[in-house]
């Protein structure tokens, strides 16, 4: 039910506060009513036709590094 998918904004219609997003190979129309400052090329989390939040590339990379570092030390998440 709380499933939400990461999608890339490819076009924004400011008049209707809607965006076209690419979900893999599929394009969808979603509402931007719940987020501010969305830009084309931003990645957003899509849930029941709404963008819920922007996804931070920087934080995603940090988390992926944590996974790799888990193999090295127990202190890296602190």
């Amino acid at each position: 039910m709380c499933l939400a998918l990461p999608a890339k904004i490819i076009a924004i219609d400011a008049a209707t506060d809607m965006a076209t997003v690419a979900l893999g190979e599929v394009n969808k129309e979603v509402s931007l009513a719940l987020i501010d400052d969305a830009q084309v090329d931003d990645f957003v989390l899509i849930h029941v036709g709404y963008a819920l939040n922007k996804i931070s590339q920087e934080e995603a990379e940090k988390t992926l590094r944590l996974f790799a570092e888990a193999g090295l030390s127990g202190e890296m998440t602190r």
Partner: protein
Amino acid sequence: MKYIDEFRQRDLAETLAAAIDREADHRRHYRIMEFCGGHTHAIFRYGVQDLMPANVRFIHGPGCPVCVLPIGRIDSAIALVEVHGVILCTYGDMLRVPASDRRSLLKVKAEGGDVRMVYSTQDALKIARDNPGRQVVFFAIGFETTTPPTAVALQQAQAEGLQNFSVFCNHVLTPAAMRAILDAPQRAGEAALAIDGFLGPSHVSTIIGSHAYAPLARRYGKPVVIAGFEPLDVMQSALMVIRQLNEGRCEVENEYSRVVTAEGNRKAQARVAEVFELRPTFEWRGLGLVADSALRIRPEYANLDAEQRFEVAAISASDVKGCECPSILRGVKRPVDCKLFGTVCSPENPMGSCMVSSEGACAAYWSYGRFRQPDDAGAVQEGVA
């Protein structure tokens, strides 16, 4: 897909599994409740439990909105269709959930009732605009993730003056349910529930923020790690819970930092606060009446509240005899402990709500073959002291 594939890499899963095996103290238990059905689904689909040492176990929580909605609320929705003749719009998950007398919204639809599956609240608004001569009710369910889209629809309907649209509100709140689980007294015929820490919700937390769990971690002394829904997120978060327990900490940590912030989505929170207020009490399947655990529509939007527009009788209905959904939802029984599981109750012909949604523990056990290993996941409760 970006942000999905990277979080399912096998080599990193092996790294994390080795780290958990190394760091988990074999002299103790780590009983971690994943609150969300989305996590339950990921744990089963990717076999995450099998990558854990025997003393690290996941206990499945009630975070599946269709699973916790009491039968009486579905009976009320059916009455809206059959007594009041409305077009009832709802999300697909809701259609097959068993109501009283072995009925469901899907059966009501088959019998000629106007029940429509929608993907978004925007679809429900469109149906209302396209059918000005009919009353259209959106049967709203879901946790904090799904509430803001309902708030937007109500504000839009208000602004447009859409007279034939209303919402039957069943939105519920996560922190209240977590408290209810920890406060629940042991019931006759059930084992005591023992939880050492929580995997916190992914997408609920994108809205309410990680700070929302701080009082819970403090008051009950349980670590909470906000976890993403991908398998590597679940493993990393389990490792973070294990480290907290090893070090005697009980804090809120955020593994899902690519989307979740401490304060959450303020804009969505504001919209929800404009439209909804706390219900003094709401019934949950499994947990019973829980104070301040659900939302209702504010008086300012009363004209769009289906419970005020129509006479929605409060129906109190009981679960199917023998169905263990209530105990399974509290984490004190496993699906294999239910006599109906896999005999008369299966995803094709569900008797209880936990077998309907793919996020329900019973559906997950069934779909991914856990029923073949009755002792596996169960080692938690009965196992090492």
